[in-house]
């Protein structure tokens, strides 16, 4: 799988994360993938993934409960675990495999940190109201 194909695969995951009403953003960022050079394509796609994760969290921020945060955190953990398995299988033997896995972990930490905080604050509130 070439770097560009990797970038397009990451972009597909990123598009899935983007909330509705952001179609123009998705098209604009994905179109740029065809104009950046191969070296840059994966970095561009990872940036797209980070931006979409943040946007998804921003859209959910208002009404998300601790329970929803826990569920989303679990779903994201499964998605990233799956991605890491696919990467390690597809790039078996390549020295770049750990770089890609490291990048994926770094990207995962963005929503994970926020959602864990959300879970903890929700639990605190629930305990407080029960007391």
């Amino acid at each position, binding site marked *: 799988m070439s770097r560009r194909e990797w970038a397009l695969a990451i972009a597909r995951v990123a598009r899935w994360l983007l909330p509705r009403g952001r179609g123009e953003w998705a098209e604009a960022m994905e*179109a740029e993938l065809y104009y950046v050079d191969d070296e840059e394509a994966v970095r561009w796609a990872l940036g797209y993934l980070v931006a979409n994760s943040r946007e998804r969290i921003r859209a959910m921020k208002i009404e998300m409960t601790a329970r929803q945060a826990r569920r989303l955190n679990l779903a994201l953990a499964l998605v990233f675990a799956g991605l890491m398995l696919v990467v390690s299988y597809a790039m078996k033997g390549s020295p770049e495999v750990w770089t890609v896995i490291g990048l994926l972990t770094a990207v995962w930490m963005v929503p994970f940190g926020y959602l864990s905080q959300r879970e903890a604050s929700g639990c605190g509130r629930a305990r407080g109201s029960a007391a």
Partner: protein
Amino acid sequence: MTRPRRASAQTLLVLQAFMAHRRRWRHGYDLSSETGLPSGTIYPVLMRLSERQLLDAEWEPSPTPGRPPRRMYRLTADGVAVAKAELAAEEAEAGDFVSVPARGRA
């Protein structure tokens, strides 16, 4: 009394890049290369500026078959006014920051 919300450092960088070539249409990658901001930062800034009607956006058809059209951005008249005001405020603030220790020494 609430202070009007100031633009972020990233937004200021993007506005500065637009102001350098005010009438030119710019692509996301082009702006990212010029400002050094990653794609995950540039696009949220562009979208917020577009939502505030500070940017015009158009699709540019690709000259190469098989490639999708690219989104291009340019400051609107309001965008130019806001960019001028934000950049001037930033410059004034930077000036104040420099002049405080200078006054202290005097």
